[in-house]
């Protein structure tokens, strides 16, 4: 693409050399990304594998007691894993329907001016530091939820889910809207020409056509939610117990790593256990990404989804 124009304006040898150079630079950058990923995984394994000679993998994942300070210390991560899952599932259930609805409104129904303003504002939301979300959750949302549901304490998985949902909304809305606007105009025109209403076209043509991209958007939102630390640490209640309902206080994997990393000695058992948690988290996000790829791998997805 465009090579011909370049040849006309610049001397004939230079473009080839120049293109090669750019190509190699890009290859190098791409290679570095992959290398960094592998190094991260390698480092996680190196620092964390030691814990599995102290507790078996099974006991680490299914154990229900996380007591790093007792003698002998116990490292059962199930309360933390379940805590992370509760909070993430809650956030997903709230954020995905709202996020996609907003995106559909922006892409299909909103007047152009309003769309520009709203998109800018939503993208701004993504720039707010997570600790600010946590702070607002703690001082404004928590008292409100406490009143609303008549709870004795509002610092629980539910409140954390709402805060996380708010935080992952910009990601979901922004990507979904991009995906919806890339659905070819011809699809809409054909549908409208056949007598379908605007609503029918949106629901039965545009959304199915953009399905894989929307799934990818949702998954990226989930990724944002599961990896969030600071806000959850502030509003989730922080009890290392097995949660039974959304109104139980929970502690997530990330929050636990953040809260306990400072007190560990490099290379110690507790340190290794926290890296073990890091491996678990890595595997969970890996599975989510993997599922996204599978779900987004049909024909349309090959066209659009993979660019996300």
């Amino acid at each position, binding site marked *: 693409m465009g090579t011909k124009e370049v040849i006309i304006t610049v001397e004939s040898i230079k473009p080839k050399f120049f293109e090669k150079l750019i190509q190699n630079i890009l290859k190098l950058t791409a290679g570095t990304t992959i290398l960094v990923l592998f190094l991260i995984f390698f480092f996680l394994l190196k620092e964390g594998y030691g814990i599995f000679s102290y507790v078996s993998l099974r006991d680490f994942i299914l154990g229900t007691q996380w007591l790093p300070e007792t003698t002998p210390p116990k490292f059962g991560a199930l309360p933390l894993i379940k805590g992370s899952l509760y909070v993430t599932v809650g956030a997903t259930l709230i954020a995905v329907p709202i996020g996609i609805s907003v995106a559909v409104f922006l892409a299909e129904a909103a007047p152009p001016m309003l769309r520009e303003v709203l998109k800018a504002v939503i*993208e701004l939301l993504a720039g707010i530091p997570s600790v600010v979300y946590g702070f607002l959750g703690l001082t404004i949302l928590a008292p409100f939820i406490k009143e609303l549901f008549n709870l004795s304490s509002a610092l629980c998985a539910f409140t954390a889910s709402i805060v996380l949902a708010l935080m992952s909304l910009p990601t979901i809305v922004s990507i979904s809207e991009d995906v919806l606007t890339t659905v070819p105009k011809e699809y809409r025109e054909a549908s409208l020409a056949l007598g379908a209403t605007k609503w029918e076209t949106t629901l039965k043509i545009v959304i199915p056509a953009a399905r894989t991209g929307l799934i990818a958007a949702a998954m990226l939102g989930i990724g944002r939610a599961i990896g969030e630390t600071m806000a959850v640490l502030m509003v989730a209640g922080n009890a*290392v*117990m097995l949660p039974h309902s959304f109104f139980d206080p929970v502690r997530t994997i990330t929050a636990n790593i953040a809260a306990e990393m400072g007190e560990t000695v490099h290379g110690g058992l507790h340190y290794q256990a926290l890296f073990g948690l890091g491996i678990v988290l890595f595997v969970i996000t890996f599975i989510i990404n993997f599922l996204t790829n599978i779900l987004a791998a049909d024909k349309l997805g090959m066209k659009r989804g993979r660019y996300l």
Partner: protein
Amino acid sequence: MGFRKTCLRKLLAAALLVGVLFMMGGCGGNEEEKASSSNEEKEYSGNLQVNGSTTVAPIAQAWAEEFMKKYPESKIVVTGTGSGDGIAALINGTADIAMASREMKEEEKKQFKGEKPKEFFIGTDALSVIVHPKNPIKSLTLEQLKDIYTGKITNWKELGGNDAEIIVYSRDSSSGTYEFFKEFVLEGEEYTPDARRAPSNSAVVQSVAQEENAIGYIGLSFLNENVKGLALSINGKELVEPSFETAASGKYPLVRKLYMYTVGDPEGLAKAFLEFGLSKDGQEIVKKVGYIPAVE
């Protein structure tokens, strides 16, 4: 077209963000200036990292302020994250002085590769058990307190209070207060898993002030009018209100010693800082920020 649009959008978003930042900057500007001006002069390589207990941090902070007034070339950074954190930082070599609201454990001492740690007793703190001001409960025995924190008692009704579930606040496991409470009140037993872990003394105060059925424990100096400190009794003896007088006289049961640790004998700035802290002036400061001095 599309590209230009997203560009425009991004620009708009960036402009908004910058605007907001400016507004926030306007509010917080003064403090930042103050902070940087006090940190400016540092010709003399006086840089001291003090890390550890959030209970001891107010003492260290007050010492550091006085000390830096006296020696403006020195720079002392006090970080309060928990006794375990401070000791780990001392072992890892990222702190010069560790603050702790408990004694260093044998296992921790073993982890020092080279020189052994040196202990400085700097003051005493009383622990106050707090509830919401509206809670009708006014006192507890240590046995009741233990039952609450191990999960045997879960409703205020069982203690003669309202029919409501007890929301138990504990501290993070890195906290010296957490360890002391576990040793002294729980007699080594485990906390109930329902206990919520708060990252600092002030976080406990904040949570208990907001929740009518909560209970928590804090260093006495953090006690304020938003929460109610409970009177305690030990072994069926008379009830004692938490205060400096009762703690200093030894009547109040929940007291613990506060320490600072260095690797080997302290030198230079660390030495000067600790000497200042243990001097008459330094101990006067301990009293002023709400603790009981180590040396009268």
